[in-house]
């Protein structure tokens, strides 16, 4: 039982952390442009970096 008292909060805490991270990503608009996110990594940024005000 002592093991449980330790492990249960850890397991639930990790799950909750994942859920919180998901909600954070949802709020920040990370799911707005899935195709773009996949392609963006391939852009060669040799030109001066653009300004991102968002």
């Amino acid at each position: 039982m002592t093991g449980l008292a330790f492990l249960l909060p850890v397991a639930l805490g990790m799950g909750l952390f994942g859920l919180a991270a998901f909600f954070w990503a949802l709020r920040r608009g990370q799911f707005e442009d899935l195709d773009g996110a996949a392609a963006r990594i391939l852009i060669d940024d040799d030109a001066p970096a653009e300004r991102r005000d968002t």
Partner: protein
Amino acid sequence: MTSCAPAPADAPVTTVLVVPGMHCAGCMGKVEHGLAALAGVRSARVNLSARQVSVVHDAALTVPELTTALANIGFASQPRADELAAPASAVKPLLAPLGVAAFACMNVMLLSVSVWSGAEGATRELFHMLSAAIGVPAIAYAGRVFFASAWSALRRGRTNMDVPISIGVALATGLSLYETFTHGADAWFDGTLMLLLFLLAGRALDAMMRDRARAGVDALLRQAAPGAMVVGRQGALEWLAARDLLPGMTLRVAAGERFAADGTIAGGRTRLDRSLLTGESAPVPAAVGDAVLAGMLNLDAPVDVRVTASGADTSLAEIARLMESAGQVRSRYVRIADRASRWYAPAVHTLAAVSFAGWMLHGAGLHQSLVIAIAVLIITCPCALGLAVPVAQVVACGALMKRGVMVKDGSALERMAKIDRAVIDKTGTLTMGRPLPDPAVLAALPADAAAVALGLASHSRHPLSRALAEALAAHGARAAELADVIEEPGEGVRALWQGRLARLRRPDGENAAGRMASVIDIAGDPAFLVTFADRLRPDAAQALAALHRLGIESSILSGDSAGAVADIARLTGLEARAAQTPADKQAAIAALQAQGHAVLMAGDGLNDGPALAAADASIAPGSASDVGRQAADMVFLTDSLLALPRAVALSRATMRVVRQNFVLAIGYNMLAVPLAIMGVVTPLLAAVAMSTSSLVVIANSLRLALPEHFQQKWAPVLRPEMRQESHRAGRP
């Protein structure tokens, strides 16, 4: 569009431009950097899924300046129309419930596994308590989607798939809570959450497909110039959106632009392409006093147009009225999932009630009878059934989209599968709908002349020049270096090439209006006459043969003159009717439907709108008018007409898979329901059965994406075309 609140001059405004031509990382980079390099642009961010770029810029920078900048780096763009400003995403509201259901399901399942593997006494009770603490709020949150839909159906005295789901979920949750507090052996939180998770996944997939299709179709919104340059009192030019145009204003319309409103020509002489409105392929000369209609293309020279009608008063209003009354066949159509749920929901409730009554009569006691009835409800909850349709349709739509066919929603696939008769418009659908240079002349051009012609043509927005530039580039020509390039509206382009005068001009001695040609004239060399004509789409014959093989008879319905239609009818061997008005087309479709046919309409023009809306299923090319694209169920982006048989064949395959899925899902119920009625189903068994049947249904649906599956029947027809297409796709 522009957020045009009156703001101080230096306050940045945000403009969203639709850029349909963006496909890859390279395009994104070019568009973002190209815009960022513009003076006055604060930032530019591309959304590739929506094919849009939102630009934050100074108010002094106008929309046409932005589109010109994009045109210079090779991207056509349009400001996003207002009605598309905030397309409410269907997926977004489902993502949060999906996340919550997934989190709760995993954690409760972890606890349940411990219970199943032998946790007892205080441990089991602790685990049940924890499951309840996680499960009840999660079920309340993630189940809202279903509860709301079930409630709105019940309030109107109807039932849908969500009613048995909601009742099952609510009862199972209540029973599990009761078991938890009375120290019972079994709680069903895990099964309930898993059910919600699978069902939400099915919903989210369905919504995702619709979002993607809509984003793609919106991105194509190019036609019917959404605005025009208005000549002010002091001769100042101002760009106004189409909805702000008023009768009496004077518009200056450049060659290659479409008219944004109905009007009469007040200055200039040009030729008009009316094909989108009437289906006529031959350009029509127009001079001062002649009427022009919104949607026509100005071919030759800039003209001034006095607006006589705008917005709702235009000739489009008549077509819009016809279309409103035409959509009945489609609104009467009931989707297969709804048809299934019509008998499924009552059957499930009867079964559960009968088991409850049966066990009560057998003397089992209230508690045990209730547990068994709820087990029946959970087992029969249409988990696999809820996935059966959306997963198959999502996979099929994904496969079609990869091959250049956008599907608006799942019901389009269902209706397309039933088609046994096709009606095809001529101009723009069976043919390319734009003038293309004679390939024989291009092949005979010396490399130098081709290079000069490409260089000249690329400086002009004239439709013939653009067609020539496109064809030459496709032939592998490289643009020659030119100096002093000048475009003379209505005359052509001239420049200096290696010190010699090079011209791309209209032919001498104005020829008959019906013929289109231009001359490549390099001083010192013989001149080349390039003739232009509207041509059949590549593979039109193969596509029609493939349709025939699918048991679909085709015919042509065109608004063009009898002569032009007869030519195409002879080339394709199809029966044809010429000089059809929009109402004629709609009537022809209704006549076929009255004979018991399920009719597919393929068309592009404004004049096809009512027919597209009236047909059982409809498809339009990507070059179609916005009316055509909105009325059609599917839009194909490739030049090839093979999109038609492909869409029909894959729709039929999808319906086969959907029916298989139903058999699988119901077959599982046949096995599990007797066990549930006998009272031997435990939460463990329910969880295993539920996930297995869902996985089987998903796996079966995924077969639709297999390339083998897709090509099997098509191998003899598709091979050459597929090669061509992969080659095309390889080009940036």
